[in-house]
């Protein structure tokens, strides 16, 4: 089973400004079952839009998303229950992702009952099992979200997603809103769950140091496009795209990466997605840009069989 994202484009039209924002511009990615794809990029690069498309909260303007051949996300629109449970989303902010008027036990039980995943008399046992899997004590099931810490809430949100028995879990910055002290716990939990339930992860973050803990492959996104893709070891040890290099350099312990001979590489602001620059979207901030970069949008080309870069200058 494979997640296949092919040439996905997502445009939002803003009526008040009479413009169209290009959130995603032809993204193609594949994730094998049991693997983790990390997606990194600055805010506004389209990573959260991609998450919403994968779980079916929104539909792509163009392109297709398939899970082992079957279109993804159609279920939400067509009311097909069976599709739902295959992909689940864990939100960034555990303070807003749980219904404040529902106990955490009821919240998980509702998923099991709605999809009839267990017999009526086994629902409660399943709730307790799921809570224990994420490290929440059984006697907390009657608590309301406001009685829990951020880390506990995120564990509950993960348990609720697992209750739907998904194959694919999209983790949209799952630890960014948590205290630094509990981030590692939740990350370790995610790694354990992946092995225990043979899950496939899409791990979205703006923080490379979090992504590398968990990812098999990494896709670096900039303004709605994938600019570099490959196994994490290769992308992190020998980044090719100037944007990837800049991101890696921004991790404190990576201040000196071989092959980067410029400092403060990222100057200027991210361009307005409603008014993208011609050619390569990065050309105005790029230290190695040549005039040709402002002419043609670079394609994602193979450097090796498992390392793709969208920059003709570094491929030369």
């Amino acid at each position, binding site marked *: 089973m494979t997640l296949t994202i092919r040439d996905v484009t997502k445009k939002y039209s803003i009526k008040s400004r009479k413009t169209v924002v290009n959130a995603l511009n032809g993204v193609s990615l594949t994730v094998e079952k049991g693997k983790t794809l990390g997606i990194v990029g600055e805010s506004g690069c389209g990573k959260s839009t991609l998450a919403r498309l994968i779980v*079916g*909260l929104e539909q792509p303007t163009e392109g297709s998303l398939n899970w082992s051949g079957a279109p993804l996300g159609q279920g939400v629109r067509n009311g097909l229950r069976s*599709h739902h449970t295959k992909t689940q989303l864990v939100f960034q902010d555990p303070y*807003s992702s749980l219904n404040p*008027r529902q106990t955490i036990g009821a919240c998980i039980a509702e998923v099991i009952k709605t999809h009839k995943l267990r017999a009526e008399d086994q629902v409660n046992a399943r709730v307790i099992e799921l809570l224990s899997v994420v490290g929440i004590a059984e006697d907390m099931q009657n608590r309301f979200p406001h009685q829990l810490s951020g880390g506990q809430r995120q564990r509950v949100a993960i348990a*609720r997603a697992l209750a*739907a028995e998904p194959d694919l879990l999209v983790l949209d910055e799952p630890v960014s809103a948590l205290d630094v002290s509990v981030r590692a716990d939740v990350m370790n939990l995610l790694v354990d769950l992946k092995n225990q339930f043979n899950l496939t992860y899409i791990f979205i973050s703006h923080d490379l140091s979090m992504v590398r803990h968990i990812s098999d492959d990494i896709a670096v996104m900039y303004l709605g496009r994938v600019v570099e893709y490959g196994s994490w070891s290769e992308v992190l040890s020998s980044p090719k795209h100037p944007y990837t290099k800049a991101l890696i350099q921004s991790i404190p312990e990576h201040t000196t990466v071989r092959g980067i001979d410029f400092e403060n590489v990222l100057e200027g602001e991210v361009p307005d997605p409603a008014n993208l620059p011609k050619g390569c979207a990065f050309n105005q901030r790029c230290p190695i840009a040549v005039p040709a970069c402002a002419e043609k949008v670079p394609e994602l080309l193979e450097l090796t069989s498992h390392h793709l870069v969208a920059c003709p200058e570094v491929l030369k």
Partner: protein
Amino acid sequence: MSKETKAASSKDWVHYYFKSTSGVIGLILVLIMVTLSIISALNLAPIDPLEQNPVDALKGPSGTYWFGTDQFGRDIFSRSIDGMSRSLSVALLSVGIAALVGVFLGVIGGFFGGWLDGLVVRASDVIFAFPAILLALAIVNSLGNSWIDTSIAIAIVYTPIFIRVARGPVLTVKEMDYVKSVRVLGFSTPRILIRHVMPNVLAPIVVQIALSLSWAILTESGLSFLGLGTQPPDASLGLMVSEAQPLAAFAWWSLFFPSLFITVVVVGLNLVGDGLRDALDPARRSSG
């Protein structure tokens, strides 16, 4: 929150409500008025409110006539509780209809948006454009004078308020991650609306119901005062105030007691509304 805290029940707000003195006073005032209404509705009033005793006309408060008598010798206490019962019936029916229709339209419009929402909002803007009492007058005039007609007129006037009170919070709540997450979990739209949207927009609606009840009583009294609500010889607080106007100079009790009843129930319902607002709002709670 510490782990020792006992599991909270959804009845937490009741506890907070009873901590507020004004809320408790309001509740007592309302309960007194409701009890008197029930006594009247069960025909347990000390004297028949319609019975005329010309010999005892315009007597002041006494052991027999607690609130005195009017110009026909009718017992003002019995008529006041009869009027209170009628006012409360009109208020409950009108606010009941307005809340059901208004909340339904507001939640549906806010959640689904589109042309339906536009229609709901425009229609309520049109109703809002008229002063409440004028619109109620016009509607009662075309419907009739029974207490049900009065209730329908008041319901039409108050429906847009409930549309607004329900729609606003729905617009916020539908964008919350917990609503998005249950969509991803594949819950049906009715389930999402009833289990996940409604409970989170209920607090302002409950408060609005308490406040609207007091306004509805005022509107019913106003309509009756103007001669368009309850008709003589039936008792209504507004009508009693109206009839007592020329007598007020020499029979103060005929004006004072019906007015007192209106004041007590309106103040009581307002205090209950304020108390509920504080009790149902977690942000206010934590500070107090």
